[in-house]
């Protein structure tokens, strides 16, 4: 497990905890993160629980008439969301690997997740 980056500036944590298409939570979460960075907030974006399903690259969302959440997520760094993590325990239980993901996502342990949230100015969970 890699060390956590040192987060010096105040930051908010946004946790995305739901699978991509069964509810609007994943999209709403993404929109919230973009709005926060829009006013200069530093956002730490974390995939937790079923939220790691959003990281499956081989999503064929057009089959359900939906835009791909994966494509939107891969644009996060372009919108200044560069601190992106995924809960290792969820990646393991959901059999998802970070290897073929096209944007930088770092695995974090449950303990590190708690640590990051504890130091955040705000934590939002979707």
């Amino acid at each position, binding site marked *: 497990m890699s060390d956590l980056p040192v987060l010096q500036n105040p930051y*908010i944590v946004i946790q995305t905890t739901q699978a991509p298409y069964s509810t*609007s*939570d994943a999209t*709403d979460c993404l*929109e*919230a993160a973009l*709005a*926060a960075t*829009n*006013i200069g*907030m530093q956002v730490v974006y974390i995939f937790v629980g079923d939220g790691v399903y959003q990281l499956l690259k081989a999503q064929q969302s057009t089959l359900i008439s939906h835009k791909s959440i994966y494509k939107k997520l891969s644009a996060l760094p372009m919108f200044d969301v560069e601190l992106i993590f995924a809960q290792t325990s969820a990646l393991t239980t959901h059999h998802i690997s970070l290897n073929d993901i096209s944007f930088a996502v770092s695995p974090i342990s449950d303990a590190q997740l708690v640590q990051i949230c504890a130091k955040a*100015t*705000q934590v*939002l*969970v*979707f």
Partner: protein
Amino acid sequence: MTNTIPTRFTLMVTKSPFDARNAHSALSFCAAAIEQGHSITQVFFYQKGVHNASSLLQPNADELDVYSKWCDLAKKHAINLNVCVTAASRRGVVDVLLAPKPIYANLVWPFTQVGLTAYFETLNDNSVNIQL
């Protein structure tokens, strides 16, 4: 009145009024916080929470009239009831500017349509955020 340091709270309500207890809990929280000398900077309605802002809600007689409760709270304590414009218009909760005809508007004062950034600007203002 208890002896506590006054705190400014921002609430984010994300569930519709009759599918979950969240709106009830939010109303109770606001009342308790104000009673104890704290203040509510804004209540922000996001996701399905925007249904709280519909003036067309018609609860059964034995159910809590959530819409009226929000209106009473806002008027009595000058609380901003902000509704995410994108989430609301998606769900057919629209003000007079967005409604196809003015008579179809179901989002009226004391509810106001704002962007998500307005919510985060308030968070920047050292408010404590409660998400429900």
